[in-house]
């Protein structure tokens, strides 16, 4: 199947005869990256699946108001990041959990998830990442796993490149420390 650029897909959505088909192509193009980003944040496949559905439903609702001054993929990542952070926040508020308890819960999800097949070191890295605050986790994941440019991350996280570089640097140091201990 032909891989369309985001610009072509947006043109198909806004000016074509079949916006539903164009949106379906947008989903097919970005679903895996968005899913992986959300999954790393919430760990459980079932939770990630629910959130990804919500992300694309929201994207469909808001796409008509999409301003082309930001890239489609960073826009989708921003919705996904917000949805994942909101999910984690709700989880904390619902059970009045402090940070380390949420991190413990997510660690337990990692251990029990039948769809987690990481090696020992990969699991150790994931557990170290779970010790970080949620936003710093998102920053680390975007840079380390998604290999996103800082300029794009700045659009996703709505913060400055300098702040993101500092956050990533600290995250790497914390993870190293945890692994070496």
């Amino acid at each position, binding site marked *: 199947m032909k891989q369309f650029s985001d610009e072509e897909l947006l043109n198909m959505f806004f000016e074509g005869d079949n916006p*539903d088909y164009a*949106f*379906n192509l947008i*989903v*097919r193009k970005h*679903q*895996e990256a968005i*899913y*992986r980003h959300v*999954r*790393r944040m919430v760990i459980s*496949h079932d939770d990630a*699946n629910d959130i*990804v*559905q919500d992300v*694309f*439903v929201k994207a*469909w*609702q808001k796409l008509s108001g999409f301003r082309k001054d930001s890239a489609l993929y960073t826009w989708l990542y921003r919705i996904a990041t917000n949805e994942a952070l909101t999910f984690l926040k709700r989880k904390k508020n619902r059970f009045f959990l402090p940070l380390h308890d949420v991190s413990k819960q997510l660690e337990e999800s990692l251990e029990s998830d039948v*769809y*987690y*097949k*990481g*090696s020992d*070191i*990969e*699991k150790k*890295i*994931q557990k170290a990442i779970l010790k970080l605050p949620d936003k710093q986790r998102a920053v680390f994941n975007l*840079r*380390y*796993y998604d*290999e996103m440019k800082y300029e794009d991350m700045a659009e996703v996280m709505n913060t400055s490149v300098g702040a993101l570089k500092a956050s990533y*640097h600290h995250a*790497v*140091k914390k*993870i*190293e420390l945890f692994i070496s201990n």
Partner: protein
Amino acid sequence: MKEFEHKDPGIREELKKIGSNLGHHGSDDGFRVPENYFSQLPNSIQDSIQQQRKQQPVFSVIPAKRLWPVLASIVLLVGLTFSVFLIQRNGVNGLLAEEDPTYEVEYLINNPTFGQYLFYEAMLESDLTAQEIMYDMGPDDFDDSDAYDELMEQLFEKANYFGIESSYLLSYLD
């Protein structure tokens, strides 16, 4: 290049600069998905969108975030309007007074403010001018008898809304 090595050499370079060995572990996070998950996901998203379409809320023109403040404002406005109506009808001390149908009619007839309010309301809903309503009340003063009928219709409607019988209104106008 190993299967899960970072594609962007900048990532590894950056990690080296930070003094980290993390770059050696590659970019596999270990998360897997059920078989055929990504081939089925677009269809289940499409289903969710179809469901959303069927459940479009009545207030969809108002963003969900603003729905509660809007509803609260409407309730407040309705409450205030009702209070003003009660004050106009019964006076400030009459807010909690018991309903007295004769009192309503007497108030309409004897209180010029309320009378003006009633006519002003009627004027807003008809094409008549304030002068026509406030000063030229008889049918002979109207060039257009349809306009007079329209005013009467509006007045009766208002009177009915306030629980005033038409016969009382007619006696007041006579």
